[in-house]
């Protein structure tokens, strides 16, 4: 009866980097090998994606966007993850990973067309190795595993990052995907952004167990880390990705964080959570925390901080302008254009009819 695949410590290059409480150790922080520019860039990116988040919130209030799902508080995960991966490593996001997409080089104005009601996902995922934002919770996790299996079949040296929320871990698809990943030893890093809320449902009502510890049941290691420390995220994802890349299979990282804003602009969190909780997490806000660290290390001064802010403001203004001036695709193309590569005749006729009815009105 002793045929359980035990994941032994030697298989786990992530755990030694962290304290039992999930903090990146000082030693590990010292050996990340990032240049001062790279370290400053992480900060720059976090400021940029937060400012863009705020701008999107404004745009929604102004009626320029139909909906917005803020990721405030989760920037360390967005930025640290992308920095830890190669550009050819695929990322399969859920719907809140706008900041990750920005870090991958997708124009935020282009991505915003989704929230502006102009598209369901305008970019080509293959260009950025960044899959579309996916709304049905957890349904993207098997996609990531399929890609990782494909990487193995093609003897690729890329790995896949699959990210999802705490709520997503309750879904059947999440489980099926985790189990497939274990069986096929797929090169995939699972990254749970445990922001403690699934709309109004707090973590304690989402599960009575531990998300990170579930990995063991699928035959690979898992760890719970501080998700509000950009370097901790970077270190964990990098080590887990390296492990996957060398053929040792999946890894599950549970990054503890907090959804500082509402679930989306349609949500009213005052109905279900208190300000004190939020205040507790304000202290752990990943951006000031990292800024203070950079300052403590003498890696950033007031002038560079000001420069970053200026650059970010310029970028955000440009994004806003690009968004507002973005052309509205023609209806026929928007509705019919991408459904099939080989559209049936009857489908083309329907499109034709639709388009002529538009003209006649």
């Amino acid at each position: 009866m002793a045929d359980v695949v035990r994941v032994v410590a030697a298989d786990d290059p992530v755990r030694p980097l962290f304290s039992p409480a999930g903090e990146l150790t000082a030693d590990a922080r010292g050996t990340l090998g990032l240049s001062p520019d790279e370290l400053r860039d992480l900060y720059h990116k976090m400021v940029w994606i937060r400012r863009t988040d705020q701008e999107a919130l404004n745009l929604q209030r102004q009626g320029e966007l139909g909906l917005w799902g803020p990721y405030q508080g989760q920037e360390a995960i967005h930025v640290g993850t992308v920095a830890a991966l190669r550009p050819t490593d695929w990322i399969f996001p859920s719907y809140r990973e706008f900041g990750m997409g920005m870090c991958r080089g997708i124009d935020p104005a282009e991505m915003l067309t989704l929230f502006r009601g102009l598209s369901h996902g305008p970019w080509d995922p293959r260009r950025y190795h960044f899959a579309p934002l996916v709304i049905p919770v957890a349904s993207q996790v098997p996609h990531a595993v399929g890609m990782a299996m494909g990487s193995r079949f093609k003897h690729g040296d890329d790995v896949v990052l699959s990210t999802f929320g705490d709520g997503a871990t309750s879904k059947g698809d999440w489980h099926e995907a985790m189990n497939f990943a274990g069986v096929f030893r797929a090169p995939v890093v699972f990254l749970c952004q445990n922001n403690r809320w699934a709309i109004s449902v707090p973590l304690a009502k989402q599960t009575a167990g531990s998300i990170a510890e579930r990995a063991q049941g699928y035959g690979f290691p898992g760890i719970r880390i501080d998700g509000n420390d950009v370097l901790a995220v970077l270190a964990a994802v990098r080590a887990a990705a390296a492990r996957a890349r060398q053929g040792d299979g999946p890894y599950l990282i549970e990054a503890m964080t907090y959804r500082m804003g509402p679930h989306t602009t349609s949500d009213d969190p005052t109905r279900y959570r208190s300000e004190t909780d939020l205040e507790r997490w304000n202290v752990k806000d990943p951006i000031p925390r990292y800024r203070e660290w950079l300052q403590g290390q003498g890696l950033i001064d007031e002038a560079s901080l000001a420069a970053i802010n200026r650059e970010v403001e310029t970028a955000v203004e440009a994004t806003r302008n690009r968004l507002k001036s973005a052309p509205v695709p023609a209806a026929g193309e928007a509705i019919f254009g991408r459904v099939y590569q080989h559209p049936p005749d009857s489908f083309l006729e329907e499109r034709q009819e639709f388009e002529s009815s538009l003209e006649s009105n």
Partner: protein
Amino acid sequence: MEPVTMAKAINLSLRDALAGDDDVLVFGEDVGTLGGVFRITDGLQKAFGSDRVFDTPLAESAIIGICIGLALRGFKPVPEIQFDGFIYPAFDQIVSHVAKYRNRTGVSMPITIRVPFGGRIGAVEHHSESPEAYFTHTAGLKVVAPSTPGDAYALLQSAIADPDPVIFFEPKARYYLKEEIDTAKEVPIGQARVARGGSGVTVIAYGPTVGIALDAAKAAEKENISLEVIDLRSLSPLDMPTILASLQKTHRAIVVHEAPVFGGFGGEIVARIADDGFDLLEAPIARIGGMDTPYPPARYEKLYLPDVDRILEAADLALAYG
């Protein structure tokens, strides 16, 4: 009684059902503390406690799956699926169990699955689906969709009281329309209503399209065209007598739903009329619905969905036919 919105009417109906029968349970994602993303369950947990009205983990298949065990135990579960597009993960539990469990065991399954459905709310993907045809084709289920606050109240009472499983589709674009309601009025499952009398063409609609059909009827009147609007309310079973009675007068029909036309529930309606009412028909029955594409980005939904113009055009064609 003050005029109430459909959202409020459903809330009242749930409240009365919970108060009237200790075995009624209301649960789903965010229905407890928050009161639902549409506030349909607002205040219910406070009033009835968290053993009767509760939040679940995020897992639609289990939300429906637990209903079977609860029903075996004597409960009357009223789960909520948060949006139309999130009922698909529960499809197996609905088709393989909710619909078939009584046939398998002889034990009734008084389960009412509430689903906000339909579009026209400017939402992102998966929040504007019209999946009713997947359920009307599933034997063992009953499928209803009210279009007014009063019908929503009464039909939900009927659904919860019904010993068989009911899929209760709520036209979310109509949640905030107000009307005076009479909570004593009964609306049995299986009865359509003539929402507006007329003599020229019968327009058959349900849920979100009833309003459009009525608007079309008003517009048509100005051109001296008389449309009779039937609000099906119940899709399965389908009230053919009411439909055929209307056809006796009009000899022409149009079917309107938001779902794509191909393979949609409109096909069933047309096929039945074309069979039972073959000799009555004096023109082809137009089906007006969503395009045969996935639901488009919000900016395009008005063009995608049935509207007054498309109904009027179809009415003109039907009247000119022959």
